C-alpha cells in the first residue's frame, strides 16, 4: 500500500504543471548561481594566489635590510576563499579580505566586498544556499500546500482510505514525496559542486568533502522540516487556500522579515562602540606603555637601567647587544596586551550579538539553517575571526623575530644602518592559514544545530499526531 501511495504521489508530482514551471526555474537558478559563484570564487582564488606570491616575492626582494625597516615594510595576510564559498557566500561580502601586518599595530581586516559595491549588496546574492534555504521551500509550499487539503476537498482522501490506505500512511507518503522532491534539488547542488570542482581541475579535498556532506545533511534536515510543515498545515487547514495563505505568511515571516528584525534587535541589545571611541580608548591605554621609538621615555629609561645592570655596563653604547631591539619588543608586548584587552571586549560584544541571534534561531529554524550553512561552508563570522586571530599570531611572531634579530643579531644600540642578512629574511616563513576542522566549526554552532534537530523531531511528532487523526472530510 505504501508503495502504491508513493507511486501515486510521484505521479501527481510528475504531472503537476506548476512544479514543472517552478521546478524548472529553480533548477536554472541553481545552475546560474553555481556557475556565477564558481566564477567569483575562482577569480578570487586566482587573485589571492597572485597576491600571496607577489607579497612573498617582495618580502624576499628586500635583501639585506634593517629588521625594523622590514617590520615596517611588513606583509599582508590574504583571507583565503574557501572552495565552499560558492555554495554559501555567508558573511564574506561584509568581512574584509586582507590584513596589513606591520610593527606597532594590530590592524583590522580591510576591504570588504560590500564596501566596493552598490546598495544592492543589501539584498543578498543568489548562491545555492539561498536557493535551498528560501526558494526550494517555496517550491515545496506551492506544490504541496494542497497535498492533503486539496484531496480532502475533492473527496479523494476518503476514496483512498476506503481502498485500504491508513491515515498515517497517507500523511507520511505525502511528506516523503515532498521531501523526495526537495532532495532532488539537494542532489543537484551536490552534483553541481562536484562537477564544478572536477571541471576546474581542483577537485574537492577530503575535509571539503566532509563539509559538503555535512552541508547536505543539514539541508536534508531542513527540507524534511519544511516538508513536514507543509503537510501538517495542509492537513490542519480548512482548505487549500487557507493552507497556502498560512504557509506563504510563515515563509515570508521566517525567511524574509524575522532575520532582519533579529539582526537589528541583536545589534541594539549589545551595541558596539563607535570606531572613534574604540580607537580613542585603545590609544589612551597604549600611550600609558613605553614608547620604543622615544629614548627619552621614562619607561624606556627604566628598562635601559635594568638591561645595563644585567650586562654589567654603565652605557648603552657598551652593551654587546642592541638595546633598541629589546625596547621595541617590550613596546610590542605592551601593545599586544592593550589590543588583546580592547579587541577582546569587542569580541565579547560580538559574541553576545551572535548568542542572541542563535537564541532567535531556536524559534526560527530558517535562521538556524543559515547559521549552520555558513559555518559548514566556512563563511561565518567564526571563520573570519579564526583567520584574523591566526594572522595576528603570525604578526606577533614576525615582529618578535625581527626585534630579536635587531637586538641579538650582531648590531649595537643606535646602529640603525645595520642590516640583517638575506638568509635571515628568507628564513622567516610566509603566513599560511589553517582553517578550523569540521568539529571545531560545528562546535561553534551547536545551538542552531540542536535547534534544527529539535524542530525536525518536534515536527515529526506533530506530524505523527496529525497523520493519525487526519480529517477526511471538509469541516
Amino acid at each position, binding site marked *: 500500500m505504501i508503495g502504491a501511495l508513493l507511486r501515486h504521489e510521484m505521479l501527481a508530482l510528475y*504531472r503537476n504543471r506548476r512544479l514543472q514551471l517552478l521546478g524548472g526555474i529553480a533548477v536554472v537558478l541553481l545552475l546560474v548561481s553555481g556557475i556565477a559563484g564558481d566564477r567569483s570564487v575562482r577569480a578570487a582564488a586566482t587573485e589571492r594566489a597572485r597576491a600571496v606570491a607577489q607579497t612573498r616575492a617582495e618580502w624576499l626582494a628586500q635583501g639585506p635590510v634593517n629588521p625594523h625597516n622590514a617590520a615596517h615594510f611588513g606583509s599582508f595576510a590574504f583571507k583565503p576563499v574557501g572552495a565552499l564559498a560558492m555554495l554559501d557566500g555567508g558573511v564574506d561580502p561584509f568581512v574584509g579580505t586582507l590584513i596589513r601586518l606591520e610593527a606597532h599595530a594590530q590592524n583590522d581586516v580591510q576591504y570588504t566586498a560590500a564596501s566596493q*559595491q552598490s546598495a*544592492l549588496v543589501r539584498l543578498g*546574492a543568489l548562491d545555492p544556499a539561498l536557493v535551498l534555504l528560501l*526558494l526550494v521551500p517555496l517550491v515545496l509550499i506551492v506544490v504541496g500546500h494542497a497535498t492533503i487539503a486539496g484531496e480532502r476537498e475533492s473527496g479523494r482522501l476518503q476514496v483512498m482510505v476506503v481502498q485500504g490506505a491508513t491515515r498515517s500512511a497517507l500523511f507520511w507518503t505525502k511528506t516523503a514525496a515532498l521531501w523526495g522532491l526537495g532532495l532532488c534539488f539537494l542532489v543537484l547542488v551536490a552534483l553541481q559542486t562536484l562537477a564544478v570542482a572536477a571541471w576546474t581541475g581542483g577537485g574537492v579535498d577530503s575535509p571539503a568533502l566532509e563539509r559538503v556532506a555535512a552541508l547536505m545533511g543539514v539541508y536534508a534536515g531542513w527540507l524534511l522540516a519544511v516538508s513536514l510543515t507543509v503537510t501538517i498545515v495542509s492537513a490542519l487547514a480548512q482548505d487549500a*487556500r487557507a493552507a497556502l495563505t498560512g504557509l506563504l505568511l510563515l515563509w515570508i515571516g521566517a525567511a524574509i522579515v524575522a532575520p532582519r528584525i533579529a*539582526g537589528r534587535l541583536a545589534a*541594539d541589545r549589545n551595541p*558596539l562602540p563607535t*570606531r572613534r571611541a574604540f580607537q580613542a580608548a585603545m590609544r589612551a591605554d597604549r600611550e600609558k606603555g613605553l614608547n620604543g621609538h622615544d629614548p627619552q621615555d621614562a619607561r624606556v629609561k627604566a628598562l635601559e637601567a635594568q638591561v645595563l645592570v644585567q650586562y654589567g655596563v654603565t652605557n648603552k653604547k657598551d652593551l654587546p647587544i642592541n638595546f633598541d631591539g629589546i625596547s621595541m619588543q617590550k613596546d610590542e608586548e605592551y601593545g599586544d596586551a592593550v589590543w588583546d584587552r580592547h579587541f577582546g571586549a569587542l569580541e565579547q560584544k560580538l559574541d553576545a550579538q551572535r548568542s542572541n541571534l542563535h537564541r532567535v534561531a531556536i524559534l526560527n529554524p530558517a535562521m538556524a539553517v543559515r547559521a549552520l550553512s555558513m559555518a559548514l561552508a566556512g563563511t561565518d563570522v567564526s571563520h573570519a575571526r579564526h583567520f584574523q586571530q591566526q594572522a595576528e599570531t603570525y604578526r606577533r611572531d614576525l615582529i618578535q623575530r625581527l626585534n630579536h634579530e635587531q637586538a641579538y643579531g650582531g648590531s649595537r644600540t643606535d646602529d640603525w644602518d645595520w642590516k640583517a642578512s638575506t638568509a635571515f629574511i628568507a628564513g622567516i616563513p610566509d603566513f599560511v592559514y589553517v582553517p578550523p576542522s569540521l568539529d571545531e566549526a560545528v562546535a561553534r554552532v551547536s545551538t542552531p544545530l540542536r535547534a534544527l534537530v529539535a524542530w525536525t523531531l518536534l515536527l515529526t511528532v506533530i506530524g505523527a499526531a496529525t497523520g493519525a487523526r487526519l480529517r477526511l472530510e471538509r469541516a
Partner: protein
Amino acid sequence: MRSMIAAVATAEWHRWRRSWLRVAVLLLYLGAGAYAIVAGQHDVQRWDTAVTAASERAAVNQTETRAMYASGVKGPADEPWVDLAVGYWAEWYSWTSMSVRPQPLAVTARGVSDVRGHVIRVNRFTSAFDVGKNIDLGNPETQALGALDLVFVLTMLMPLVMLVFGFDLLSYEREQGIATVLHVQSASIGRWFAARLIVLAVIVLVPTVGLWLIGAGVSGAFSVQAAAVWQGAGFLSLLVLAWVAAVGAVGAWVTTSATSALTLACLWVAVTLIVPALANQVVSAVVPVGYASEVTNAVRSEQAALYAQPPGAFRPAVYAAFPGLRSAPYAQFDDAADSLRNPDKDMFLREFAEHMLSRRAMEAIWSREVAREQLAMMAQWGSPTVAAQLALTRLAGVDAASHRAFEQAVVPVVRAKLAMLLDGEWNNRKYDVAAFDALVALVPPAARYGGTIGITSWVVLLTWLSAAIAVAVAGLRRPFLSPSPFARFSLDARLSQTTTVS
C-alpha cells in the same frame, strides 16, 4: 465612474470590517515602518555624533596650535623637536577631519552607509583609501542579514501588503457570483475593475507615502532636502501604481483567488528576491572584488620603490603639476650637489609622488566600482524593487556613488595641501598663524552627499506600469467569465488529474 468607485469603496469597507487579517497586515506594515524610522534615526544619530566628535577634536587641536603661535613657542613643551614655523610641522598640526554628514533622508535608508567610512583625518599623507580604515565598527553577521530600514519596508513589504489586499481582484467577483450579477445588469466590468484598482491604490498609497513623509518629517528633511522628499514621494507613488497595475494584470488573467495569490507571491519573489540576488551574484562574477591589489602594492612595494629613488627623480612630475615652482628661489638649487640641497624641502617631492601613487591606485578601485554599479543599474530593468532601492538610497545619500564622491573629494584637498607646502618650501616661507590657518582652510567642512533619482529609474517604473496596464487591458478584453488560459497552472488543475490507487 464616481458612483462605481463609491460602490466599490463601500463594499471594500464592509470587507475590511469583517477581515481581521487585513487590519492586522495594515497595522503590521505601519508598525514595521515606524520601527524602521526609529532605527534609522538611531543610526543617523550615531553617524552624526561620530562626525561632530571628529570635528570637535580637530578644532581643539587647532585652537591649541594657534595658542602656541600666539605665545611664540616653537611647539609643545614635551616635543622639543617640533618647530611650528617649519612647513611640515605646521602642516602636521593643521590636520583636520573631512567628513560626510548624513542627509536627513538617511533616516529612511541604510544603503552602504555602515560599510563605508564617513570621517577621515586629513594631512599631507592622507590617501583616499584611508577612508576605508575608518568604517564604523559593525557585526558582519547582522549586516549580512539585511537592513530593516524604511526603504526595505516601503519597497519590499509594500507589495506583500498589496498582495493581501488585492490578491482576489476580480476572482473574488467571480467566486462570489458578483461578476454574474454585473454581467446580467450590463454594468461595465472594465469600470468595476478600474474602481477596484483605484480603491486598492488609495489603500496602499496613503500608508506608503504617509510613512515616507513621516520619516522625512522626523528627520528634518523638509527643511534641507524638500525637493528630494517630494521626489521620493512621487517615485514611491509610481512604485505603488506599478504594483497596483501588476495586481490588476494578474486579476484580469487568473480566475481563482488562490492562483492569483500564488502568482503574485511568485512575482514578488522574482522581483524582490531573485532578480536582485541574481544581479549581485552576476556582478560579482563579472567584475570580481578581489584583494584590492592596487592598494596593497601602493602602500608597500611601490612605496618602497619610491624610497629607493633620489627625490630629484620626482622633480619633473612635481614641476609639471605646479609650474610656478620653477621660478621659485629654491629652484636655483635644482642642479646643485646634494650637499647644497635641503633634504627637508626635497622630501616633499617624494611625498607628492606618494600622493600620485595612492591616487592612481584608488582610481583603479573606483573604476571597478563604477563598472559594478553600472551592471547593478541594468538589473533595475528586471525589477522595480531594485530600481526603488537604488533610487531611494541615492536620495538618502547612502549609495555607493555618494560615498565615492566623498572619497574622491579627499584627493584634491591633499593635493592642495602639498601644493601649498611645496610653494612655501620653494619660496623659503616661515609659517605663522595666518599660514597655518590657510592650511586648515584647505579642508572643507563636513559636507552632505547625495543626488536625485536618475531618469532611468523613472523610465523603468513607467515601463513596468505600462506593461502591467497593457497585460491587464488584454486580459479584460477576453470574455470575462471564460476560463483562464493559465488554468492548467491553477490550483484546481491537480484535482482534475486522474489517478488510481490499487
